[in-house]
């Protein structure tokens, strides 16, 4: 029972954070939402009994990729151009 609740909460959080990545106009907010997405994904991997993938996802997805995105966003400007 507790597993079903954990799965439901984490997958709902994954879908919400993925939608936030797409919806945010501020790119730094989108990068932070991507970090949250990676962290929830690593939790999901851990619950599905894949600790190897969970460590790799937490280190690379939540740590390094967010940092590299933020460095790139600082260089090119933080507002997304809206094309109509």
């Amino acid at each position: 029972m507790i597993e079903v609740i954990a799965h439901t909460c984490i997958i709902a959080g994954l879908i919400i954070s993925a939608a936030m990545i797409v919806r945010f106009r501020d790119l730094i907010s989108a990068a932070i939402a991507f970090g949250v997405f990676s962290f929830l994904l690593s939790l999901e991997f851990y619950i599905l009994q894949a600790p190897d993938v969970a460590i790799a996802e937490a280190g690379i997805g939540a740590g390094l990729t967010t940092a590299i995105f933020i460095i790139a966003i600082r260089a090119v400007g933080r507002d997304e151009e809206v094309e109509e």
Partner: protein
Amino acid sequence: MKKAVTGAVILILCAVLMIPVLSLSFGSPAVSQGMDDYFIAHGQEQTGANNIVTGIVFDYRGFDTLGEATVLFTAVLAVGLVFRKLKRGEEYEYE
């Protein structure tokens, strides 16, 4: 009108994609293929590693790990090529 059609298509796609998800046995191992039984039975004595995952990644499937390391090396080479220091007076040439 356009938004309504898009939303309807997305809803139908989600419903169709949910059908195989509901029939999956989520979180439990798939049907055994025979290969994993061999690895579990012989992996510990052949490689000497208690962690069978590492035994497979670095011993039985060593070529995959070599390819992964090479891909990472090539990625670093490409990033270094893009962000290399230009000499004085030199400019990027575009074809």
